[in-house]
């Protein structure tokens, strides 16, 4: 809660500073805001918030908030390069990101579907705008249109699901819903259909097949800075929300959904990875890879109580952000994969970050991505072993996708051209690289 307040205020401040064309100050304010929000979340256990007395509060775990803040911090730094040059919209961009993050924090671990829905909208609406922030670009406009319409359509579906659930149980409180449903979900088709609508809405948010269509198009149309934010924060929030909502509502009966979840997992992973293979645009590649990763994330639903999604999403975010940063580094205005040829040779830090990020995404130990995957599979394997087998086969295809990108980036060029990273990019790459490695402490 305090984090939200801090973020909101710094967002407002950023907005005003941005109006004065001072991008750096806006960045500093936003960074401070994010840091403050993370700290507030960290110290939240130390004192009681006055608002906690109310029934509808936000019980988000501090770890998630901190993760979201850090990821956002990295994202705005990684994408800052562009806004330093075109300082027109820096303030708007930063404050919209911060507002959106408020929504993410609200919806990540809700206990009340109403707050959850509002959070979802606060998260989504600024992103609709952010996608279209490149006003001169037709692609950006198209992406914004597509994202907006699919997004509001999915919101409507989700809302419908919430309404049906309410109809079946008479409450928006997850705890009450659970206790009212305890008589048995199969006695209430309405609740069942409601939860399926809910699931569809979530699947849209994290971009699982067949609700993934917005992903590639929107990712491609969005600028690198926005891509960095939305490919990480939205997914993290989405998966946390679904785990939380389903974990609470179907505390004892989540396994009813397992076969559907398995289907989603398998479809997403195979579709995502296979389609990623033939992409020529980096952003689309990342988009399809994120579809597949969404499938992986859904493993968390196989055993809701024991799953630990944190590691996976963190690893995913810390691998995606440097990659997009490198894409920004490669060429600001194009996302064609040909820009990636031999890019590792332009800068040693880029090379290191790239190798680690791609191997982390491919899930090869001892990098963070492996531990994420492992912790997901650890809880899932006893419940859906055959899905796990299929998922791992899909992972092999995925590894191919990443290795292909890696080979492209590592190809030794005829003439080596050095290129410097900007300061923020350096920081982002350093931090993500280090964090990829420091996952070792998890051993």
């Amino acid at each position: 809660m305090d984090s939200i307040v801090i973020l909101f205020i710094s967002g407002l401040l950023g907005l005003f500073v941005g109006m004065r064309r001072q991008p750096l100050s806006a960045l500093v304010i936003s960074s401070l805001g994010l840091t403050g929000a993370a700290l507030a979340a960290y110290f939240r256990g130390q004192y009681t918030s006055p608002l906690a007395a109310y029934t509808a509060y936000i019980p988000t775990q501090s770890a998630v908030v901190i993760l979201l803040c850090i990821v956002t911090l990295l994202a705005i730094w990684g994408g800052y390069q562009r806004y330093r040059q075109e300082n027109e919209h820096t303030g708007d961009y930063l404050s919209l990101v911060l507002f959106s993050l408020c929504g993410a924090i609200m919806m990540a671990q809700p206990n009340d579907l109403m707050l959850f829905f509002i959070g979802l909208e606060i998260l989504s609406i600024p992103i609709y705008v952010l996608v279209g922030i490149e006003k001169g670009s037709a692609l950006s406009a198209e992406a914004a249109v597509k994202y907006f319409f699919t997004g509001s359509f999915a919101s409507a579906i989700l809302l419908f699901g919430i309404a049906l659930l309410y109809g079946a149980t008479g409450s928006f409180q997850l705890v009450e819903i659970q206790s009212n449903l305890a008589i048995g979900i199969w006695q209430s088709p309405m609740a069942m259909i409601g939860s399926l609508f809910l699931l569809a809405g979530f699947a849209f948010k994290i971009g699982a097949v067949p609700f993934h269509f917005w992903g590639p198009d929107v990712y491609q149309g969005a600028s690198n800075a926005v891509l960095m934010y939305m490919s990480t924060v939205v997914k993290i929030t989405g998966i946390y929300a679904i785990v939380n909502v389903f974990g609470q509502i179907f505390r004892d009966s989540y396994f009813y959904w397992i076969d559907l979840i398995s289907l989603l997992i398998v479809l997403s992973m195979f579709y995502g990875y296979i389609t990623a293979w033939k992409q020529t645009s980096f952003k689309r590649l990342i988009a399809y890879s994120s579809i597949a990763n969404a499938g992986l994330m859904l493993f968390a639903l196989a055993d809701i109580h024991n799953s630990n999604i944190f590691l996976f999403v963190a690893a995913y975010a810390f691998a995606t952000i440097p990659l997009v940063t490198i894409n920004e580094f490669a060429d600001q205005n194009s996302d064609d994969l040909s820009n990636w040829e031999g890019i590792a040779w332009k800068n040693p830090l880029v090379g290191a970050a790239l190798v680690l990020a791609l191997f982390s995404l491919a899930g090869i130990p001892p990098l963070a991505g492996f531990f994420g995957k492992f912790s997901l599979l650890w809880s899932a394997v006893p419940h859906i072993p055959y899905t796990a087998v299929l998922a791992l086969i899909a992972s092999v295809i995925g590894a191919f996708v990443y290795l292909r990108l890696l080979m492209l980036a590592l190809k030794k060029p005829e003439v080596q051209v050095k290129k410097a990273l900007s300061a923020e990019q350096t920081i982002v790459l350093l931090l993500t690289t280090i964090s990829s490695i420091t996952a070792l402490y998890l051993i």
Partner: protein
Amino acid sequence: MSLQIISIILGSLTLASALMVVLSKHPVRSVIYLVVTFFFITSMYIMMNAQFLAIVNMIVYAGAIMVLFLFVLMLLNLNKEVEPTTTIGAQFAAFIAGGSLFLVLITALKETLILGQSYRHQDNQIGLVKELGNLLFTKYVVAFELTSILFIAAMVGAILLAKREKQIIE
């Protein structure tokens, strides 16, 4: 019994006007039909004694939002433009999908606990402003406050997107 008849008539009109929203070729007519639909929905709210919502729906939806729609339509000066058409196949597919969706939803209704149950008139004051106001500013005050973020964001976004860039003018 009269209530019953009124309900049925209202319901049918709602659906009819909603269908017209989808079916009419001209966007302005769609807007008008939408306003009509909202009007009927509002009246249904009143039937259920949800007075506050009825008012809000009338003011916000039929009033503000729909005017905005019209405004944008006029702004873009689209009323003369030929309405793009959809292929028959796509329409058919959409219709099948919609139909099955509806069927599926009806299944949800079947065998539901509340099927066939009438209103509970014993506590019908909840839809009044006082009751809701109480609830809104105690239990849901956090949510209420947080919507301000939504609005700020929407505002910033709307201005940001709709504002003409200088470069475009020059």
